[in-house]
């Protein structure tokens, strides 16, 4: 059954990377509770365009929770107050009539604001480029049963691989640390035989890049895993620490 609500959205507006930002509050009426959060922002932008104002810039792409493009820090939570979903999967039925919804960009020194709610997340790409891949020649595609992998390891690797690199972990972290992301990307390969070959070099290269880009030091608060839309486990960080420390001890 369709219901509509009247809300206020308090949005961070910032003209450019160097400009000083501020909050702007917009009133929206008759927003369907069946609409998604991003559809609500689309409605807002259409309204702004019709009033000849500049629309709010925000990142989005697939709108089905798999690309990792949408971000937004909504009412104090990355990807909004609901758990295990991305912003595009958040629905307006999670909000009440008369609510003021505060929308902020990811705030982290390594994710500078480009405009309004859009931040530069290339730092994560740079970490992947530093070692988040397998470069050994694996030949043609072998049969799936040619390399036996224990079910447990396969499952753990798959769970780690569910990371979509959205940046919610660094955005949620009080230390601006990217450890959960790096841990997931190191784990998904370190757990599998094809990835083990370069595991030590990968852990060192990715951690070094993460530190170089200005992410903070992990203090195991666990806010990252609590806010992760894909429920990547905090224990991946222990695995990354293990991989990294073992690699350094061997040197």
């Amino acid at each position, binding site marked *: 059954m369709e219901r509509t609500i009247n809300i206020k959205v308090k949005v961070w507006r910032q003209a450019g990377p160097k400009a000083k930002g501020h909050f702007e509050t917009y009133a929206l009426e008759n927003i369907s509770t069946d609409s998604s959060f991003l559809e609500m922002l689309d409605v807002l932008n259409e309204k702004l365009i019709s009033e000849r104002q500049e629309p709010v810039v925000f990142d989005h792409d697939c709108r089905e929770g798999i690309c990792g493009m949408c971000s937004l820090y909504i009412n*104090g939570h990355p990807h909004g107050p609901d758990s295990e979903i991305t912003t595009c999967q958040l629905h307006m039925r999670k909000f009440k009539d008369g609510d003021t919804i505060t929308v902020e960009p990811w*705030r982290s020194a390594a994710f500078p604001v480009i405009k309004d709610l859009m931040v530069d997340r290339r730092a994560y790409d740079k970490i992947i480029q530093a070692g988040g891949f397998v470069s050994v020649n694996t030949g043609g595609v072998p049969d799936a049963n040619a390399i036996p992998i224990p079910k447990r390891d396969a499952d753990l690797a798959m769970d780690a691989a569910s990371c979509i690199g959205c940046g919610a972990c660094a955005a949620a972290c*009080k230390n601006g640390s990217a450890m959960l992301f790096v841990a997931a990307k190191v784990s998904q390969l370190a757990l599998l035989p094809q990835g083990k070959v370069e595991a030590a070099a990968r852990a060192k290269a990715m*951690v070094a890049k993460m530190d170089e880009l200005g992410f*903070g030091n992990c203090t195991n*608060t666990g806010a990252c895993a609590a806010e992760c839309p894909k429920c990547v486990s905090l224990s991946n960080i222990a695995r990354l*620490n293990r991989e990294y*420390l073992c690699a350094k001890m061997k040197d």
Partner: protein
Amino acid sequence: MWLTDSSIGRKLVMSISGVALVLFLLFHATMNIFSITDALFGVEYYNAICKFLGANWYALIATLGLAFLVVVHIAYAFFLEVQNYRARGRQRYAIEGKQPAVEWSSKNMLALGVVILLGIGLHLFNFWGKMQFVEIQHIFGIHVCETALANATNGVLIIKDTFANPVYVVLYLVWLGAIWFHLTHGVWSALHTMGLNNDTWMPRVKCISNVVATLVVLMFAAVVVFYFGVSLAA
């Protein structure tokens, strides 16, 4: 040096120094229990330990080692905190949500650490300054009061005097509370940083953390409460 240049290296220094300090606390707390059993059974084991750990060469070396650990742990704490504050960016969030899974102590380790440091200051003034420090001064030929020197290894007497004062009792209990919060996060976080954790062990290391923190704090608090009780009874 990767122990200063890499984030995981810095965290390793934090965790190793932290665990070493926890081991010291376990030893210190166990030792203190003798001050209670002595009073109950009329023996003098606690003062024997005080004599053993006076200004002897091995005790002085151990004290220096301990001071080094404390300095390293605190220096790295501020080093990490400044870096983390910078990493968060200049613009802070207008609204910061809470996650039920996140312990309060994990977000306030530095503040708890400062309270603990103030407590250490008070504790050194109350005990170390009247015990090992007096002996050290005496060795270097600095004049110390005769009674102070005579009582320098009489730990039980100093405990009795200190905890007869309700102000000190309250301050010490607050201090122990801060230590409890600091350790409940600190112990499991240290093990996690050393890589000694996984999904199966996560609840176990957190349990170990709580048990160690509670054990340490209860043993220390027992002495404070017991001797406050003794002063009331006297």
